[in-house]
């Protein structure tokens, strides 16, 4: 019988992984504090919290998918498409709850399509979500002829600028999603099965667990969270941009892998993803504060991702020897 990953040894490894990224984050913060006097300020702190919110939400969805051994490359275009739908209805429909429901529905539908092709037709998730990425982008441009939607004042106030105390509302929404995800993965049957599917899909299936159902489920979760992220983005930006969300899949994958989730699935944690997402945002923020050109930034972020995946590979080697 395959070793249950939630044994003491497994948990210890997880903690080490987590403190690994935690240490890296702490080190980064120290370096940036020394390098820029503006880094460790309240206004920058709030700025980081704001920017984190969207990254965290998308990365949480990505974590669910990667845990089952899959990948969701369509998150960026999902965010753009849902954002377009949201803004479109917001301009003509005054009932904001209806707008939210419709947007979430679109996100879920995309998730269902992804899940159907991956779980039911057994097409590799890389191909399916890559294809959906293009389909999503095309639909976004079709929706209103590729134009941006501008001037969504009321929504902007609700999502973009509202604070409770000094914490942005969107960050609280992100933390809430994170906590729910953490609870599900840690303490529910569904959570355990998701890990199991990533660990060994065939064995899980033979144990009588509805693998197809859970696989479908994680893509739906990802789609749902993309819809949530899209509303946050449109709220912050006050513009629905058809080219929004580009590169989101890179960031989400990076955050998830840096946070200790394995590309092969079956191991990882939401807490790790949180650390990973914060790490990516702080890195970008620091580079911006230091005035580093956006091209060098891209190089740095790309290298960090490669490094993270490399470390993940080494981790796996050590784990298999243990």
């Amino acid at each position: 019988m395959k070793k249950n990953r939630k044994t003491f040894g497994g948990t210890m490894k997880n903690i080490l992984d987590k403190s690994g990224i935690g240490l890296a984050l702490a080190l980064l913060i120290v370096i940036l504090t020394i390098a820029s006097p503006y880094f460790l300020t309240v206004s920058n702190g709030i700025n980081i919290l704001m920017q984190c919110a969207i990254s965290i939400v998308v990365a949480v969805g990505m974590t669910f998918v990667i845990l089952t051994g899959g990948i969701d490359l369509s998150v960026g275009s999902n965010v753009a498409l849902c954002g377009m739908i949201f803004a479109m209805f917001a301009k003509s429909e005054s009932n904001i709850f209806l707008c939210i429901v419709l947007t979430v529905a679109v996100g879920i539908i995309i998730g269902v399509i992804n899940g159907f092709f991956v779980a039911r037709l057994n097409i590799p998730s890389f191909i399916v979500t890559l294809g959906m990425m293009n389909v999503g982008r095309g639909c976004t441009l079709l929706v209103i002829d590729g134009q941006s939607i501008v001037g969504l004042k009321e929504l902007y106030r609700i999502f973009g600028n509202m604070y409770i105390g000094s914490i942005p509302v969107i960050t609280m929404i992100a933390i809430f999603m994170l906590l729910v995800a953490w609870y599900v993965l840690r303490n529910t049957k569904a959570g355990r099965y998701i890990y199991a599917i990533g660990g060994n899909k065939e064995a899980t299936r033979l144990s009588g667990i509805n693998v197809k159902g859970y696989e479908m489920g994680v893509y739906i979760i990802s789609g749902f969270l993309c819809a949530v992220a899209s509303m946050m983005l449109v709220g912050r930006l006050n513009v629905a941009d058809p080219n929004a969300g580009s590169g989101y899949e890179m960031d989400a994958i990076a955050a998830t892998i840096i946070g200790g989730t394995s590309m092969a699935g079956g191991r990882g944690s939401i807490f790790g993803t949180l650390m990973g997402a914060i790490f990516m945002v702080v890195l970008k923020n620091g580079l911006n504060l230091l005035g580093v050109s956006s091209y060098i930034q891209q190089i740095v972020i790309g290298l960090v991702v490669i490094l993270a995946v490399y470390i993940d590979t080494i981790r796996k080697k050590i784990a298999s020897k243990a």
Partner: protein
Amino acid sequence: MKRVVVLVVMLMMVFTFALAGCAQQSTTEPSATEEVNDAAVDESTSEVPEEDTYTIGFLVPSFSNQGFVVARTAAEEVAEELGVELVCVGAQDETSIEEQIQCMEDLIARGVDAVVFSPASSTGIVDVLVKAQKAGILLVNFDSRVDADTAEAAGLEPIPYIGANNEEGAYLSAEYLVDLIGGEGKVCIIEGLPGHYNNEVRKAGAIAAFDAAEGIELVTIQAANWGTEEAMNVLTDVLTANPDIKGVFACNDTMAWGCAAAITAMNLTGTVRLTCFDGLMDTLSYVEDGTIDATLDQRLDEQGGIGVEYAVKLLNGEDVPESTDTNVRLWTIDSIVDIFPNS
């Protein structure tokens, strides 16, 4: 059975991939007199096309940039007046020259008589322009100039140009910003795609305006690649690192919207002033409520319309001026009352 389904799905995705790459909107079916590669189409049974029914291609980086939609609308109006067919083509990504080259090659294959175009890259477009000229297609350049050195080196024949004097327009917009902040203080520039001709000349114009003012200090220039979200994130960090900045010049409107969002989020509206360049209709609401202080209307409508006019003239064997400047104007809270009396 499952394999068939998988195969069909794969084919559908590849097909969608191809479609998504080049979005094409034709106003009417072309009845081109020269069919270069299209052997399958047999037009001989339909009536002989009249001499005047020219087919003109209208090629832009991307119609997701509103400015090009404005140009297209004006171009379509002129095309209708003059009785020519217009084929409007734009790629999905306005920064992608590869996609635009594909679109141009499609136009060449369709055998259009002329192409009115704005390049996504001033240097990258040259090779496919040479191809077009070899195929006998007449060209008119608007908005962003083709790079003169690359053109000369490739043996490209001179192409007439209509556009706004971007450098002068940016100068006006930045000068207005200087006035707003009382001629003194720190400013920054949010530029678009580095290396793009329009970006470089607008930047140069703004820098010149800032240099001309003694009390003004240009603190930093950061790129946001024409993106709204990117501009918001970049400016937020720039303002955090330089809290004493009083003025921001953005090299186009779509970035300025992001800058405005950043300024509003940090509660700095009115303290940090913002001007930009492009004159898109959506920017009007920003100017009206003061979140953007001014934008330079480069009259893309004039450019699109005159572009088509020139193309027809060239096809009729007439001469057109080598370079034409449009009448730029600044949209400010004061001037929009006159420019748009109904709003």
